[in-house]
């Protein structure tokens, strides 16, 4: 009996060990390849700059546009960074080792996506007020912007990872991934930008954030399974 619990303990230990080891590895990787870390953020900033140039620099008009623009920019920069999630592991053979590990694949995948989110989605969330300022988003909208991004971007990363896993073996994966994933991003975009608009007009935020949270919960539950299945399929050819 004691033996049994002991081995269960060990198992649990090795699982959480694996989770953190994977997170640690991902952080090491992204902090040593700084361009991967910074590029999505620069892209985020640039996309937001295009709108005043392309439409109009008039503050009132931009303020109206701001929630949608910041959200679309965040969505596109997340998408841009997704392609790299599994590609380097695929190219150097780490992905094969990952798939042949006796450890549960969804756990490693979840750790990878979370680590990836914390250097993209989380960074975008922190950077968002800057864009809000540039686009004259009223100060009342800022908490809504940051909270909605905080709850919405992990969903974007999880769903994007499904696309990344499906296209990992393909040479033209980068373009294809946006085709696969963008339609799936639409609900997050709708609820996210509506939350910001509600915050600007002083309406209660709770409902929007609850919806974003529900989407995140659904994605957390189902996406790792889909990603694992997709990886196995992509690697099998």
């Amino acid at each position, binding site marked *: 009996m004691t033996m049994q619990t002991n081995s269960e303990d060990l198992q649990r230990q090795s699982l959480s060990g694996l989770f953190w080891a994977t997170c640690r590895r991902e952080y090491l990787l992204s902090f040593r390849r700084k361009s991967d870390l910074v590029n999505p953020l620069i892209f985020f900033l640039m996309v937001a700059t295009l709108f005043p140039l392309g439409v109009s620099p008039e503050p009132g008009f931009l303020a109206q546009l701001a929630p949608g623009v910041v959200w679309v920019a965040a969505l596109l920069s997340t998408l841009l960074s997704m392609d790299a999630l599994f590609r380097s592991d695929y190219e*150097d053979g*780490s992905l094969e080792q990952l798939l042949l590990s006796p450890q549960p694949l969804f756990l490693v995948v979840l750790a990878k996506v979370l680590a990836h989110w914390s250097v993209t989605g989380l960074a975008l969330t922190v950077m968002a007020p800057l864009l809000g300022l540039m686009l004259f988003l009223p100060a009342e909208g800022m908490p809504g912007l940051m909270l909605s991004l905080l709850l919405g971007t992990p969903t974007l990363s999880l769903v994007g990872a499904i696309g990344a896993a499906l296209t990992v073996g393909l040479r033209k994966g980068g373009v294809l991934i946006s085709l696969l994933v963008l339609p799936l991003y639409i609900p997050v975009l709708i609820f996210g930008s509506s939350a910001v608009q509600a915050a600007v007009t002083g309406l209660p935020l709770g409902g929007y954030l609850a919806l974003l949270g529900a989407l995140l919960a659904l994605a957390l539950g189902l996406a790792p399974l889909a990603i694992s299945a997709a990886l196995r399929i992509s690697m099998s050819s």
Partner: protein
Amino acid sequence: MPDQLLTVQNLFCERDDRVLFNRLGFSVAPGEIIQIEGQNGSGKTTLMRILSGLSRHYEGDIFWRGEPVEQVRDDFCRDLLYFGHQAGVKAVLTPQENLRWYAALSPAINAADIDHALEQVGLRGFEDVPCHSLSAGQNRRVSLARLYLSKAPLWILDEPFTAIDKKGVAAKEALLLRHAQRGGSVILTTHHELGIRGPVRKINLDQCAGTST
């Protein structure tokens, strides 16, 4: 326990309208070293990927310790060490960091043995040098250090000796032999003439190709 570790029956695989092997069957007993031979493009790598479970595009049966491998996938993965064409080494990580992650992937490996394993492959003193500053051969050896860490009985090695010098090859061959003597099995492909004298069996894929009807 059945005396065969791995049994392959009636394996058929076709790629791009070409039959790579048809009615391929063999089994691997503990203590055996099996060398897969064949010309370039004869499907050696495909076979290795099928045996390891990466590729599922085949017809036929594979048994692990007498059970269909699909049903005992977890046990099989626990007992398998697979070494593919790509080394699986991250260039921006150090050898130590690379191996630590492998240790996390397979619970049987003891992370404390990593330094010892690196010493065995002659990378002592390079533990914390990023792998992109190492030579191709050294990178290969980082990956080969997994052989010293592994406690898995079945090793599937696809061209393990690429970019390794003569002395290194001799050391690896000794390692394979020792693994076999301890009751482990090895399935490998290599362009080198194996210098191992002992339980080496050769399987030639060129003889297994045939047209399907």
